[in-house]
């Protein structure tokens, strides 16, 4: 377990809904609902946080969810209880998943790989637990390849990474580097906020 990252997100937990649950969540809700409407079968949801994404899940699904922060999951419990379906939430580090190989039909992430310390290793870990032919659906913000946005995001990352996420990750490249087949990248705001659909090759 990465104690530094766990401590960082435990510390952020009490203020997380105020920071992330307002404008950003309202802005992104319709896109998340569309992405999560693909949920089928045995599902892993990565980095549940305080459960802000739960209201955008389709009803009646059976979801295993993990987060590195116990305090985040404590705060998520009320939303887990309200969900019309089943969510089993556990404290777990993506670098050290306790699930068997090829266990899940699908994996979903939501603003997760801006924060995973070693993203390619984390993605390889997801690949291990995902069935061959299974899909990885991601809602992520990444860095931009366009100036001046690239410089701005590199500068802001110097501040943001101390409190929470990096803002300049190359997540699409990381997904490919981890061995996934990238099927679709849908830019929602510039080339920064996007959904990514990938497949674990058979």
């Amino acid at each position, binding site marked *: 377990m990465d104690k530094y990252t766990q401590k960082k997100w435990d510390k952020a937990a009490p203020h997380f809904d105020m920071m992330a649950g307002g404008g950003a969540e309202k802005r992104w809700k319709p896109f998340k609902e569309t992405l999560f409407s693909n949920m089928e079968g045995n599902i892993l949801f990565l980095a549940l946080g305080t459960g802000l994404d739960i209201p955008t899940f389709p009803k009646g699904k059976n979801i295993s969810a993990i987060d590195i922060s116990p305090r985040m999951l404590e705060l998520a419990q009320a939303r887990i209880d309200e969900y019309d379906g089943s969510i089993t939430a556990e404290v777990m580090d993506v670098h050290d998943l306790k699930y068997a190989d090829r266990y899940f039909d699908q994996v979903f992430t939501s603003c997760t790989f801006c924060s995973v310390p070693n993203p390619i290793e984390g993605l390889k870990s997801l690949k291990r637990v995902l069935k061959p032919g299974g899909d990885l659906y991601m809602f992520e913000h990444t860095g931009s390849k366009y100036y001046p946005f690239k410089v701005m995001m590199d500068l*802001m990352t110097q501040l943001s990474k101390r409190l929470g996420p990096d803002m300049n990750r190359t997540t699409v490249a990381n997904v490919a580097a981890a061995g996934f087949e990238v099927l679709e*990248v849908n*830019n929602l705001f510039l080339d920064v906020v996007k959904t990514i659909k990938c497949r674990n090759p058979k």
Partner: protein
Amino acid sequence: MDHRIFFVAGDLIANLLVGALVGLVSAIFVGVGWNMLLAMILAMMLGMLIGGLTFFPLSLLFGAMEVMLPAMLTGMISGMVVGMRGTMHSMTPYEGAAIGGICGLVCILIIWVINSRLRGVKSHG
């Protein structure tokens, strides 16, 4: 751009406010007779800093990256323009705020145009 009226209005208000604030501060900060290039660079950096900091309260209402990047661009451009004018003409803080506010509105329009070109499905495997 996001077509929901709350976010359209939010984008306009946020960039108007950031631009006006940066313009006001730049007009106070830069004096007539300064080296123009130096004034532009300093005001641009100050504007980006202000844009980056004002992002935090504005993001609570209007979004995350959708607020941060326009705010920083607005800060950069407003600071540069007001900083440049400030070296040539004496300018009241209110004039600086007005010019900065206009720069903010222009910046968000530019962002909307760029976004319309970049958004959508870009690659298939």
